[in-house]
Each structure stands twice: as structure tokens, then as C-alpha cells.
């Protein structure tokens, strides 16, 4: 469909999962571009958070400052929303945030593959959050976890109706949680690709789409951070239900 018309633009081609070393077999264990870019994300995380902090300087270097900034950002987010009880899950949430932020940002590199634009990835991430929150909620509060759906601040006759709405919205969470991230990542990258395709065919006038690419790239730099932030803060807010059910 994208191939119809004049310019030969494949905005969605960048999202195709391919075996890394050629061939056509795609088994569950086959190293693919997904493997490559997830591995690069891990390397970036290691460089930034482990190698960057290896000197343990009292006066931080640039990379250590960045690592400390990310740490403090997530730590404070959890502390503000969940209180001290939430800090037990800090490594888990920090891992999610780091992975999403680095993957999103790596996606802006030309010729890269954006792992967080894949439904498989975001759905697994969102389901992991959903299952974690539900499990923690049930283990910590038992049946009391169901208070999440019973809004005591509402008038009594309204509560059953609200309970139904709350239950539906609870189970829709992983859907919105995953689609939001995937959609944002996919849209921005597809737009860049479309402009890049225009730039290829417009000849002298290609500086228009190139300027547009620069503008979109600037916007995307904001979006990649905001989406990582949104995913993380929603995780923390969902976690709050598990830690303090009925605390509406």
C-alpha cells in the first residue's frame, strides 16, 4: 500500500523483524534485529550506569551525573507516589524505565530498529506490569485488594456501577499501557521515514523534508523521554493500587 504512487516509500519496512545472519527461518531462538538492538540497549545501559559510575566520584563526571539523575528521577517518582513501601520494587521499575528510555532513544538512530515500537514487546511489558501489580496486590492484601473496585467515597447506590466500570478499566490497562507506547514510537518513526522518502525524490527541493525531519526528530526526542516517563509513572500508579488498595 505504501508502495502505491510515485515515490517508493516503505515507512513500515523498518519495523520488520529479520534474522540477523540471513536465512529465512525464524525460530524463537533465532538472533534477529530485535536481538541486536536489545543487546545494544543493554550495552548502552551498562556503559551509562555501570562503566559511567565506576569511579564512584564524590564530584560526579558527566555520565555519572546522568546515571545519578536517572536514579534520582525514578526513586523520587516511586517515593512520591507509593511512599517507602514502593521502594522495594525500585529495581524492577528502574529496569523497565531504563529499557524503554534507551530503546526509544536508540530508535531515533538512522537504520536502527525500534524494539519498543513492536506490539510483542510493549504487550509483554504491559502484561508483566499488570501481572506483577495484580500478584503483589493479592499477596499483600488478599481479598482486601478488591477494595480497588469498591469506591467508598462514592454514594452507595452508585458503587456497583462504578465497580463494573473500575473492573473494566482495570483489565483494559495493559491494552492502553502497551498501545500508547507502541503507537507513539511507531508513528514518529514512520513519519520520519516518509519525509526521508520525499527527500529522496524531490531533488533540489529536498531541503523541505529534511527540515521537517529535523523538526520531527526534535519532537521525537521529547516524545521518547515522555513515553518512557508515562509508561513508568503509570506502572508506579498501578503499583499504588496493589500497595494501598482503596486509597482513592
Amino acid at each position, binding site marked *: *500500500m505504501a*508502495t502505491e504512487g510515485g515515490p517508493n516509500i516503505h515507512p*513500515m*519496512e523498518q*519495523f*520488520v*523483524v*529479520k*534474522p540477523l545472519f540471513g*536465512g*529465512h*527461518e*525464524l*525460530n*524463537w*531462538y*533465532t538472533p*534477529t534485529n*530485535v*536481538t541486536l538492538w*536489545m*543487546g545494544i*540497549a*543493554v550495552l548502552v*545501559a*551498562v556503559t551509562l*550506569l*555501570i562503566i559511567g*559510575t565506576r569511579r*564512584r*566520584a*564524590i564530584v*560526579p563526571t558527566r555520565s*555519572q551525573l546522568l*546515571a*545519578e539523575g536517572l*536514579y*534520582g528521577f525514578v526513586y523520587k517518582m516511586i517515593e512520591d507516589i507509593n511512599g517507602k513501601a514502593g521502594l522495594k520494587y*525500585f*529495581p*524492577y521499575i*528502574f*529496569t523497565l524505565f*531504563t*529499557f524503554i528510555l534507551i530503546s526509544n532513544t536508540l530508535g531515533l538512530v538512522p537504520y536502527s530498529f525500534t*524494539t519498543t*515500537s*513492536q*506490539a*510483542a*514487546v510493549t504487550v*509483554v*511489558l504491559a502484561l*508483566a506490569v499488570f501481572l506483577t501489580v495484580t500478584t503483589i496486590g493479592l499477596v499483600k492484601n488478599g481479598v482486601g485488594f478488591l477494595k480497588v473496585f469498591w469506591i467508598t467515597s462514592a454514594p452507595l447506590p452508585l458503587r456497583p456501577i462504578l465497580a463494573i466500570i473500575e473492573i473494566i478499566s482495570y483489565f483494559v490497562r495493559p491494552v492502553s499501557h502497551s498501545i500508547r507506547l*507502541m503507537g507513539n514510537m*511507531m508513528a514518529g518513526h514512520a513519519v520520519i521515514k516518509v519525509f526521508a522518502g520525499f527527500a529522496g525524490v524531490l531533488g533540489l527541493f529536498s531541503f523541505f523534508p529534511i527540515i521537517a525531519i529535523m523538526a520531527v526528530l526534535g519532537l521525537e526526542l521529547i516524545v521518547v523521554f515522555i513515553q518512557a516517563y508515562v509508561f513508568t509513572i503509570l506502572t508506579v500508579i498501578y503499583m499504588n493500587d496493589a500497595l494501598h488498595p482503596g486509597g482513592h
Partner: protein
Amino acid sequence: MASGIRLAALTSLLASGGTAAFAAAEEGEKTGMPQLDFGTYPNQIFWLVVTLLVLYFLLSRIALPRIASILSERQGAIARDLEQAEELRRKAVAAEEAYKQALADARAEANQIIAEAKAEIQKEMDAANAKAEAEIAARTAESEKRIAEIRSGMMQAVEDVARDTAVEIIDAILPGIADPKLVADTVAAKVKE
């Protein structure tokens, strides 16, 4: 049409039990969203889980404890520095107090020394004054004695002169009647008046 291919991909995924032919994926690429090519899901999910586990392990075992220790060390260092600064400030204040105390002591001592010196000088001066006064008094007494002697000597001389003069005058006026003894007594009485 796209949904048909998706369905085909899904059924092939189900049929092959997690292994899809890459050809199906290639076809999916041309028709719609590659994200909905379910044939690639097991692969992506597998690598995602591996990545997350590795990342979680690295972060929770190495990165996060290290950053936490850096931050707490910095907190500790700042607190320690502040404490040290406070300690030094206290020491400076104590030193200033000691300095002031020493200054006050020195002043007091100086004042005492001055007072003692003054008292001693006063004493010496008093002694010298007393001695001088005694000497002056002695000299005065001596002088007065001598003045008295001179005065009495002078009186005698005046009497002698007066007597001689009186005798001469009487001899000159009435020669031969002069009674030297009477004249002498009379002159002596007159001079004494």
C-alpha cells in the same frame, strides 16, 4: 485482506508451535503493520525476556547499589564536611575567647604593675619629701638661730654705737658731766624698747 494475512500468520504460528516461516513475515511487511505479524512474536518475546533478565540482573546487582552507595557517600561526605566546619568554627570561637581572656589578663596584670610602681614611687617620693622637709626644717631652724644671733649681735652694736654717740654728744654739749654708767643704762633701756 490484511486481516486475512494476519489470520494466516496466526494459524501458521499455532500450527508450527512457535516457529513461523520467514516468508510469511516478508509477505506481512508488504501488506500492513509488521507489528501484527504474529510469527515473529515468540522470537521477540524470547529475546525481550532475556534482555530484561540480563538488564535487571546488571542493574539490581551492580548499577543501583553502586549509585545508592555513591549518593549516600556524598551525603555522608557533605554531612562530615559540615560537621568539620562547625567543629573548626567552634575552635575558632574558643581561640578568640582565649585570646580575649589572655588580653584581659595581660591588661589586668599591666594595671596591677602600674599601680604597684605608682605606689612604690609614691612611697619613695613621700620618704624623700619627708627627708627634704626635715632637712629644710633643720636648716630653717639653724638659719633662724643664726639670724637671731646676728640680730642680737646687731643690737649690741647699735647699743654700743648709741652709747658712744650719746657720751660724745653729752661731752660735746656739757663736758665733764657725763656719767658713762647712767648713759649706758639709759641707752640700753631705749634700745630694748
